[in-house]
């Protein structure tokens, strides 16, 4: 495996998660010097397909996997680089995550951490990417059933879109920051298919309150809300490992109930602010501007958004 390879952009724990590269995130998330990469860039296991589209390749295909320690606990980690091909799932990219999850079944780490940063399937390798996403979801449920929590961390520039959103929904716990968007169809996709009246993708405030971290946390789509710093994600990941739900019939029945209740309660809402109002938020319009401390205080008064039904 050789020597650890790092990116000089690492600026320590205060660095912005959103701005950091995937390597810098891993470097700051894990205990210092503990990351050991598997299939590192020196092995040059790049996409066999991108050159046919005249597109440049990356040494790690935008997916960095390996092992490390989190406050001393042994963990397996995967990080997507959202700036390379939008962090999208291609053949090599997806297979590295599939392999990591299969390794987790044998190694039984304290957790598997997935640092999402993806637009979904890489169209140039669409069938391979889509199949890999299905393999990842199957493997995640097997890892969870074996008692190993799978924690998703979402705060990258590409968010967790398309199949990435489905994988996120399969994890035991999700940590999001303000910038972490979770969705299946992205704003541009909806606008292209349905028109700007349905979704104006240039309306960033609309994007944030429909798919962003605060909305997902308020509605129970994510379990923890973190500041946009590597330090905050590290602490949130540690907290999440300690209280991950099992993967069994009771959990999925509870999730069924939770999702049915959401439809019954909010199914006629047109905007996120209506949902927040019905949740009991006194001033929904003020939510986007709340600091993390203010937002956490708000959440503390809305117990129902915290659950084990995932």
């Amino acid at each position, binding site marked *: 495996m050789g*020597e650890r390879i790092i990116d*000089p952009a690492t600026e320590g724990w205060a660095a912005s998660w959103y701005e950091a*590269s995937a390597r810098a995130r891993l470097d700051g998330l894990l205990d210092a010097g503990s990351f050991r990469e598997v299939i590192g*860039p020196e092995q040059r296991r790049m996409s066999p397909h991108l050159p046919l589209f005249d*597109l*440049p*390749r990356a040494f790690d295909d935008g997916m960095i996997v390996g092992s490390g320690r989190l406050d001393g606990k042994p963990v397996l980690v995967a990080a997507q680089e959202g700036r390379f091909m939008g962090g999208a799932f291609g053949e090599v990219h997806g297979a590295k995550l599939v392999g990591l999850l299969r390794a987790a079944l044998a190694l039984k780490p304290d957790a598997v951490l997935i640092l999402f940063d993806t637009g979904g399937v890489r169209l140039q390798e669409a069938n391979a990417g889509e199949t890999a996403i299905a393999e990842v979801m199957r493997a995640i449920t097997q890892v969870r059933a074996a008692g190993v929590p799978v924690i998703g961390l979402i705060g990258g520039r590409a968010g967790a879109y398309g199949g990435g959103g489905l994988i996120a929904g399969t994890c035991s716990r999700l940590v999001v920051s303000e910038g972490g968007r979770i969705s299946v169809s992205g704003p541009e996709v909806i606008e292209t298919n349905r028109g700007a009246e349905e979704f104006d993708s240039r309306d960033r405030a609309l994007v944030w309150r429909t798919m962003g971290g605060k909305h997902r946390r308020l509605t129970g789509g994510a379990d923890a809300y973190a500041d946009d710093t590597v330090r905050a994600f590290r602490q949130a990941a540690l907290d999440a490992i300690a209280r991950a739900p099992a993967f069994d019939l009771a959990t999925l029945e509870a999730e069924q109930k939770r999702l049915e209740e959401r439809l019954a309660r909010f199914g006629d809402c047109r905007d996120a602010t209506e949902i927040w109002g019905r949740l009991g938020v006194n001033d929904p319009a003020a939510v986007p501007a709340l600091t993390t401390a203010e937002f956490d205080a708000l959440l503390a008064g809305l117990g129902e958004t915290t659950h084990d039904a995932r």
Partner: protein
Amino acid sequence: MESLTFRHTTQKALPGAKAQAITGVVASGNLEVLLERALPASECTVEIETPIRGYGEVWAAVVADFVARAQPGGLRITVNDGGARPDTVSLRLLQGARLMEV
């Protein structure tokens, strides 16, 4: 895609003992540089894959300037280019060489 390879002789080996390093990301206007201490002390190679064809002379000049400034003897350098400007390329190459000197 266009592939370019440049071989240079250096006066000395790059200091430091680090075996390998990577810097940068393959994105529009950016590039990644992988550096490996894999060659005899007086040699350096730079291999480039770029989607922008026809800029071989510019690459040759940027690489020659880098070799003269950094004296990266012993390094095998591999570049995946996302269409970076020459000044960005220079910066990343020098950044990479500094990482190897740690």
